[in-house]
């Protein structure tokens, strides 16, 4: 895939950047500024994929694969869509990897939260039948 990479010089480039790069991790040439411009065909392609996936996820509901499988299919399609949006619309594909780490950390902790609370779900009793005052004291 060929991507347009724009090399842009900052107006007062050389003078500034010279040296004082605060970010040891970044090895770019000083005074140049890498801007990744997403080409139109890619944007359209991602959009078309998203529409198709939306169609799939709606279409799937007309078939019964069983309660569990249907949920997982729906979630898998949603994850695929979300990945497309994050990678291309949100530029993660070309971004500093640490931003992806942040996203994954957030998803990990959401999963941890939900997973652990569900672990306890056998204990939640929303069909609880409260004893009435007929039979119990105040």
């Amino acid at each position, binding site marked *: 895939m060929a991507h347009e990479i724009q090399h842009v010089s900052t107006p007062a480039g050389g003078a500034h950047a010279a040296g004082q790069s605060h970010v040891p991790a970044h090895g770019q040439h000083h005074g140049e500024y890498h801007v990744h411009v997403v080409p139109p065909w890619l944007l359209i392609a991602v959009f078309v994929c998203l529409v198709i996936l939306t169609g799939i996820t709606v279409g799937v509901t007309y078939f019964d694969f069983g309660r569990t499988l249907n949920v997982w299919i729906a979630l898998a399609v949603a994850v695929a869509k979300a990945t497309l949006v994050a990678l291309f619309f949100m530029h993660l594909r070309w971004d500093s990897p640490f931003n992806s780490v942040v996203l994954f950390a957030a998803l990990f902790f959401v999963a941890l939260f939900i997973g652990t609370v569900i672990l306890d779900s056998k*204990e*939640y*009793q*929303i069909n*609880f039948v*409260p*004893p*009435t*005052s*007929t*039979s*119990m*004291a*105040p």
Partner: protein
Amino acid sequence: MLKILGSIYMPPEASTVAPGVDWLFNFILGITAFFCLLIFAGMVVFCIKYRHRPGHQGGESPGHSTGLELTWTIIPLIIVLVVFFYGFRGFLDMSVVPPNSYEIIVQSKMWNWAFQYPNGTVTPELHVPKGVPIRLVLTSDDVIHSFYVPAFRTQKMSVPGRYNRAWFQATQVGEFPIYCAQYCGTSHSKMLSKVVVEEPTNFDRWLEEASNPEKQTGFTPQKAGEDIYKSRGCIQCHSIDGSHGTGPTWKDMFGSKVALSDGSTIVADENYVHDSVLYPTKQIVQGYQAVMPSYLGGLKDKQIDWVIAYMKTISEPYKKSMGSSGAVPTSAPMHKDEPARSAGSNLK
């Protein structure tokens, strides 16, 4: 030796799990004391030896020592795993209910406890036989409370909307306090009760008496009716001071004329009360909703008779019609000018 020491900071050991808990407590206390001494001694020695003073120079020392640091990573890790193991084992003892245990339902409410025995008797204090595993099923009417008996080392929240369970087996005859250990509002600190541990034979005798008021000393139908009024939920909706509740007040009701929602009028006699308790939707008093639950199967006819007897003692029309022959009971209604508010209603 540890037992004597423990009595300084622990309540009496009155259940089968208590010695185990206390043993673990003392074990951790030992670990705590050891590490505290180690760390504090190190601090004191260093503070004295390396204090800044004329002529003292701070020496060079290694910036780290992986061996040393791994040592004080791994040793605490082992210690905490050991503590976890014992804590977990003790917890299993606490949560695995022995089969065939005696079940008591604990129901909490702001701010009192009610204990229901298998025969349906409900008491505000918990009586248990010694040496019998007691299984508690806890639930709450309103907010979260926590059933806590320090002497048994037993605690479990009683949560509305679910049943929690706990069990214990008392090993000592005596009376032990029950606390509510989860904050539950104004009178949280007075949500106290006690557990009375008795020999099994005494317990059986007590239960028989408790379930049959007629056998209790000082039994009168009026008093038994008042107990039912207080303990079986009537008090929540029916006042005895004339104020409006969810249901009509009992003050001066018996023997008076009652206007019903269908426009008719009826005299509140024995039949009316009896029917209202068992089939509450049959006759709705004007201005009230049909919300009262039926006590069909919940109260026996004899118990309803006691309630009626109690209602008679707080009804002026009835007493007048009887030529005020009945003595005024101790639980006489408050004065008419009293503000129409029961003691509990101004609580938030």
